[in-house]
């Protein structure tokens, strides 16, 4: 074990806070479970603003609209614990700047991506050292952006993209057992947000891109209790994992609308059970990818508007 012997550490594995019967009654009853109020193809609103961090060459801040259930819970609190969380993240771009002297020659812009959760971002505290999921997100983001940036225009240069996640999406409803669907579905929403925000920040830093690349998420969810057969898996866009009982499969894409191309695709789960509309001959995964692309198109409109604002600001300064 890597225990730090210089400090007095708490017990390994954590302790369990006292659970009072009154809490339990109100807190975990099934009626308080967050429910999706939006239409299957309705997206959450996105707040995106560029140029908030003056020291960086480009920056952006992105926030998802809290789900309707969260607003309801705030207006009429039954429990102190919010039923779901909404994504908030900040992205900074530093560069293009010369590569360090020790680095080898590169004919292209060398992209470095850094994704870090703030310690308080998730319900479970994150450490200060990047863990494997954060590194994984970094690789995904790098793949998404590298396809969009025209890298050969900056030989021998580096570009650092740093994303700090201030509030992360939940992987499941907080009241469900941690194993009910334990895959990290929230990570996919976080990645979609990272892609959109990074794209805005890169445009804010005036770096040439093929197109603004936007992130979108779609998922196949079944909301009925899994025991009954009525729970038909449905395709939904921009899913908040806290609002769904079980997510069978989810997909995130980084999409460039002008070229109709996907630079990053991450799909996982069993997509074969989705019930599509009659006459729809697509297979589950194709429908899922198309759904994610539709969600990305939605995010792209916000992105374009934010970039236009950023441009107006620069023009105004000049």
């Amino acid at each position, binding site marked *: 074990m890597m225990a730090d012997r210089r400090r007095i550490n708490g017990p390994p594995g954590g302790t369990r806070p006292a659970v009072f*019967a009154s809490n339990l009654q109100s807190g*975990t009853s099934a009626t308080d479970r967050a429910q999706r109020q939006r239409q299957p193809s309705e997206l959450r609103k996105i707040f995106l603003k560029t140029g908030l961090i003056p020291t960086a060459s480009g920056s952006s801040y992105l926030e998802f609209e809290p789900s309707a259930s969260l607003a309801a819970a705030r207006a009429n609190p039954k429990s102190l614990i919010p039923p779901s969380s909404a994504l908030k993240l900040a992205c900074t771009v530093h560069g293009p700047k010369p590569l360090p002297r*020790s680095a080898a020659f590169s004919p292209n812009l060398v992209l470095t991506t850094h994704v870090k959760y703030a310690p308080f971002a998730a319900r479970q505290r994150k450490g200060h050292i990047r863990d494997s999921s954060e590194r994984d997100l970094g690789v995904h983001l790098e793949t998404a952006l590298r396809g969009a940036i025209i890298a050969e225009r900056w030989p021998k240069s580096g570009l650092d993209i740093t994303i700090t996640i201030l509030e992360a999406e939940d992987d499941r409803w907080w009241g469900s057992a941690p*194993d009910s669907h334990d895959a990290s579905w929230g990570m996919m929403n976080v990645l979609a947000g990272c892609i959109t925000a990074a794209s805005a920040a890169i445009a804010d830093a005036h770096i040439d891109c093929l197109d603004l690349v936007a992130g979108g998420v779609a998922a196949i969810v079944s909301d009925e209790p899994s025991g009954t057969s009525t729970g038909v898996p449905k395709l939904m866009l921009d899913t908040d994992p806290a609002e769904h009982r079980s997510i069978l499969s989810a997909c995130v894409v980084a999409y460039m609308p002008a070229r109709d191309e996907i630079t990053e*695709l991450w799909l996982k789960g*069993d997509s074969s059970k989705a019930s599509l509309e009659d006459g729809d001959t697509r297979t589950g*995964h194709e429908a899922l990818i198309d759904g994610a692309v539709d969600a990305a198109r939605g995010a792209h409109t916000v992105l374009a508007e934010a970039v236009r604002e950023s441009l107006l600001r620069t023009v105004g300064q000049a």
Partner: protein
Amino acid sequence: MSNQRQASSASQVPHLSPAELSYLYTSLSLPKTPIRPDGRSPTQFRPLTAETNILPGTNGSARIGFADGTQAIVGVKAEVEKTILSNETLARNDGGVGGEQEGSAAVGGHGSWVQMSIEIPGFRDDDALPVFLSEMMRESLVGAVGTDETSDMTGGLKGRLVINKRWHWRLYIDVLLLSQPLAYPLPLLSLTTHLALLSTKLPKLKSQGEEDPFFDDDWAVAEYLYPRPSLSSGAKSSARSSFVRPPVTLLVISVGENIIFDPNREEIAVADAVLAISITRDSEAGNLKLLSIRTVDPPSRLTQPGVPNSENVSMLGAVAPTEDVAVLNPATGEEEVPGVWRPRRGGVKRSVIAEMVKTALKKGGVGEEVLEGLEGVEVS
């Protein structure tokens, strides 16, 4: 330093000149009949040697060597661990609120019970490449949920690890690459992991129900982690295919309009798009199903561009301007001078992705061929 930066993308950029890259791209993107440097057909895999149960100290192990000399060894070890019950599960059992998601921890298993670590020479444990590879393989492993109610494998691998409500197995999968990777090591690692899991055995449980578990000392009666068809019922391929098998991850690239499986280092260097597709056999229908797709950053984006003669100062006046005319590459939608390499840009079309998945999944396609080939490896 530079090595580490580049390594975070698909793999190291091979040292090929723009002219070589252009030649490779042209021959690989020939319509319908790509010519691969080693003469394989687009869906053919490289020859490999495989053996299982090579390490007596592990629960299961396998070694695969490709003909180019890269080898991987995978060892699987299992440990018994106490299941930490969450508040909620306890509360449900006490208060009887249950009904929904009943005791899901005990029945469903937990994805974190499978741990995977990949050792690649020249990389640190927490470098991007090993982390990305292990997350990719782990997510398809724990994501493969069997729906067959009758077999032991309900709930997939996660469910199989449950001993009872209070105890479970923790599975450690250690992947060892024995030499610096020549190509993107994903296919090698995935196939080796598949074989190691197939050969993995767990001691036979002697305790019953909710007792603290104790096991039969006799290793000869140990049970396979992925149950085998018994000899009496088996032998028929139809019976065999109904058993749950670990997933495999295939590496697929697209070059021009062609789709090529199991690329070697030179081929991946000119790929337009690289996809890692995890598949497994659907235990009900017997056909293949998709578990996950991830795009991998194609190293072709980091290559050095070639310079067409018309722009080359040293060739000024030596060639007629009509000699190289930019034409539109239908696959990428960009203007290119034939024979002059441009680093790839942009992403991949949805139709290409759909075609890649279809080729991998279709009956008698690449996926089935690979799974059958692996089942043919003698698991002693």
